[in-house]
C-alpha cells in the first residue's frame, strides 16, 4: 500500500511538472490543471513513517512498531499529445526502509546495499526484493482529462521481484504467500490507486477560500475489501514557498472499509493452499481518523513542492477458525488482532536548480530537514 501510495503521489507531482505552462494567473485565482511536455523530468522523495502498537493474535504479546519507508522516484513525460493525453515513464531510483517490531529490526537502503547485514534470510529477502524494485519502470498512460487511464508493466515489475528470490532457500509456504499477495496487484488495481490519489488537484481554476470535495471507492485486494473515501480540500492562500509561488492547499481525507465478504470454509475441507487460505480468510476492519494535510503546489510550473499528511488508523484483523469435521466452529471468540497506527506521509520535490533553470534533471537529497515545530 505504501509503495503504491508513494508511487501515486510522485505521479501526481510529475504529471503537473511535465510541461505545465506558466500562466499569468491572478494571485487569488489559479489554475490547477495537468499539462504535459515531452522530455520533462521530475524527481521526488516520498517518506512514509508509521508508528504504533501491533497486537498479534492471542496469546502473543502486543509489540511496538515503527517503520520508515523512503522512495526516490523519477517521472519522465515520454510523449505529450495535442489532446492533453500523455505517456509517462515512472522509475524508482532508490528505496530505503527501516522497520522495528519488538526487538526485530530490519533495514535496507538501495543506495548502500553493501552495508546491509545478509546473514539472515529475512533481511536477505528484503534486500533482494527492494533491489529488484530499483530501476524498474512503469508506463503510465494519461487521458485528456489528466487522469491515468492505463498502467503497464506491473506484471513484469512483480515477476522481477519474485524472481529475485529464486536462489534463496525461502520456505515453500512463505513463497506461496508472497505469490498470493503479489497476485493481488495488477495493472487495474494500480491504476485505481493512482486515480484515487488525483483528488488533491481540482483540475480547474480556484480562488483563495474555495473548497472542493472528492469521493471515491476502490478495491483493496490485499485486505479482501473495498474502501469508501471522502476528501475535502481548500485553497488556503497563495504564498512563496521554497522560492516558488505556491498554492497552499489544506487537505482533510477520511475513509472507511466496507464489510469484508465472508469466505466459506466447507466443513473439514482445507483451502486450496495454506497460504491462499490464510489470506482469503482474513477479515479486515479499517477505521481512519485525522487525515489532515497541507500541500504546496507551484502553480506557475505545475509542480507539487511539498505535501504533508497525517492519518490515524485502527485496523482489526480477524479470521474465522477452521470448522471441525462435523462443521462446528472451534476456538470461537478469539479476539482480533488490533493495530493502532499513525502514519505521516511526506512528499518533497528534489531539486537544487534555480527557478529559471527548472526542467533540468533534479538533484537528490535536497529535501529540507524537518525542524521541531
Amino acid at each position, binding site marked *: 500500500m505504501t509503495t503504491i501510495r508513494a508511487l501515486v503521489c510522485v505521479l501526481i507531482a510529475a504529471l503537473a511538472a511535465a510541461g505545465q505552462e506558466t500562466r499569468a494567473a491572478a494571485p487569488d485565482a489559479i489554475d490547477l490543471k495537468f499539462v504535459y511536455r515531452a522530455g520533462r523530468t521530475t524527481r521526488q522523495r516520498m517518506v512514509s513513517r508509521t508508528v504504533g502498537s501491533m497486537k498479534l493474535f492471542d496469546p502473543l504479546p502486543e509489540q511496538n512498531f515503527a517503520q520508515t519507508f523512503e522512495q526516490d522516484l523519477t517521472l519522465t513525460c515520454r510523449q505529450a499529445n495535442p489532446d492533453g493525453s500523455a505517456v509517462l515513464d515512472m522509475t524508482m531510483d532508490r528505496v530505503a526502509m527501516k522497520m522495528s517490531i519488538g526487538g526485530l529490526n530490519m533495514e535496507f537502503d538501495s543506495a548502500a546495499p553493501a552495508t546491509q547485514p545478509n546473514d539472515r534470510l529475512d533481511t536477505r529477502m528484503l534486500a533482494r526484493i527492494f533491489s529488484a524494485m530499483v530501476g524498474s519502470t512503469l508506463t503510465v498512460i494519461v487521458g485528456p482529462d489528466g487522469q491515468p487511464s492505463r498502467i503497464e508493466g506491473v506484471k513484469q515489475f512483480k515477476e522481477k521481484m519474485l524472481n529475485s528470490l529464486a536462489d534463496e532457500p525461502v520456505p515453500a509456504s512463505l513463497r506461496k504467500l508472497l505469490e498470493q499477495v503479489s497476485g493481488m496487484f495488477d495493472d487495474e488495481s494500480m491504476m485505481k490507486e493512482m486515480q484515487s490519489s488525483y483528488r488533491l488537484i481540482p483540475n480547474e481554476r480556484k480562488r483563495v477560500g474555495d473548497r472542493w470535495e472528492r469521493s471515491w471507492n476502490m478495491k483493496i485486494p490485499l485486505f479482501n475489501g473495498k474502501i469508501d473515501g471522502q476528501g475535502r480540500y481548500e485553497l488556503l492562500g497563495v504564498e512563496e514557498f521554497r522560492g516558488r509561488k505556491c498554492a497552499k492547499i*489544506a487537505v482533510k481525507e477520511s475513509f472507511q472499509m466496507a464489510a469484508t465478504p465472508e469466505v466459506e470454509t466447507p466443513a473439514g475441507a482445507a483451502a486450496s493452499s495454506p497460504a491462499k487460505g490464510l489470506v482469503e480468510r482474513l477479515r479486515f476492519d479499517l477505521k481512519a481518523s485525522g487525515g489532515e494535510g497541507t500541500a504546496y503546489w507551484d502553480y506557475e510550473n505545475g509542480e507539487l513542492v511539498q505535501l504533508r499528511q*497525517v492519518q490515524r488508523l485502527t485496523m482489526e484483523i480477524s479470521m474465522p477458525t477452521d470448522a471441525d469435521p462435523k462443521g462446528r466452529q472451534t476456538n470461537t471468540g478469539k479476539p482480533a488482532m488490533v493495530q493502532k497506527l499513525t502514519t505521516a506521509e511526506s512528499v518533497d520535490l528534489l531539486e537544487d536548480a534555480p527557478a529559471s533553470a527548472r526542467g533540468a534533471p533534479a538533484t537528490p537529497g535536497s529535501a529540507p530537514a524537518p525542524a521541531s515545530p
Partner: protein
Amino acid sequence: MDTRVIRSQVHRARPSSGYRPALIALLAALLGHGAARAQPVADADAVERSVYFVEKSTEATELLSRNKLQEALAAFQELAARYPDLDEDGYVAMAIGDCLAGLGRDAEARDAYRAAAAAHPALASSVNQRITDLELAGEVSDALIERLRMAAASADKGRYAAAWQLGRALQKRAKALLIEAAAAFRTASEADTPVSRPDPGLAHARALEALAADLGSLIDRLEDGWGSARRAMRLPDKREAAGAATENRTAEWVLRTKDGRRIEFRMKWAAEACDSRTEVTANGKPLKLSDNQQSALKRHEDEIRAILLQAAEETGEAGRRGK
C-alpha cells in the same frame, strides 16, 4: 535551493505551545457553529506538529527496539511532555512504561502503566497484561498463579492471554521446584549412613539439576521469542545462541535389538535455520517423525552442540580459523 527560505517558513509554522487547539476550541464555542464552519479544513501548523510527532515517535520506537532504553525513555518522555494532545491512543504513555520495565525500574514502570490506563481507559487490558509481565519477571507467587488460573478459566476475551501467562508462571515455578527438590536430595545424601555405597540421592539430585537447566533453556527460548511485551521479540539466531554456526550436522547410531536385529540410524539436520526438520533413516529407509519427536530431537541437538562446544573450549580444542 535557498534553505534559509525553507527554514524560515518552517519556523514560522511552529506553534509556541499547545495553546492553539484550546484557543480554536474557545473561539468555536464563542462564535457558534458558523465559526466552526469557517475554520479551514486543516491547520498547516497543526499538520507540521503532527508530522513531527510521528517522526520523533518513530525514532524513539527504533531506539526502544534496539534496546537503547535510556535514550528511548528520554525521547518518549519529551514527546509526552510536549505533545500530550497528540498521543491519542496512549502509545507514548505505554512506551514510557515499556522503557522503564526494560531498565528494571519496575515500580516506576507500574506507575507509568497505571497512568497510561487512567488517561486512556481503552488500554486497561494491555496495562493489566504488562503489569502481570512485571510480576512474572520476579519470583512467581502463589497469589499470581491463583489469579491467572481464575482469569484463564473465565469466559473473558482475555482468557487466552491469561492462559499464556499462567503457563509461563507455572513453568517458572516448576523450575524452582526442581532446583529445590535437587537441593533436598543433596541434603539427604549428606546424612551419615553405616553402608558405604554410591549415594542414590546425589545422583538423583544431579539428574534433577540437569532437568532444571534443560527446562530453564526452554523457558529462556520462549521468553526470548514470545515472552512479554517488555522483552523484545526477535528471530532466533543460531550463531548468537550457541556461540557458533553449525556447518554440518549428521549423526549415526547402530543399535542391536533384544531379538538380534541390527538397525543403522542416520540423522541429518536441515542446514537452514528456517527449516528445523530433521531427516532420519533406519537402514536407509526414511522414518516419519511426529511433531513431538521432531521437537525433542531439535532440543537435544541444541543441548549436544552446547556441550560439545563447551568441552572443546575447556580443553583448548576449538580448532583453527578458516574453512
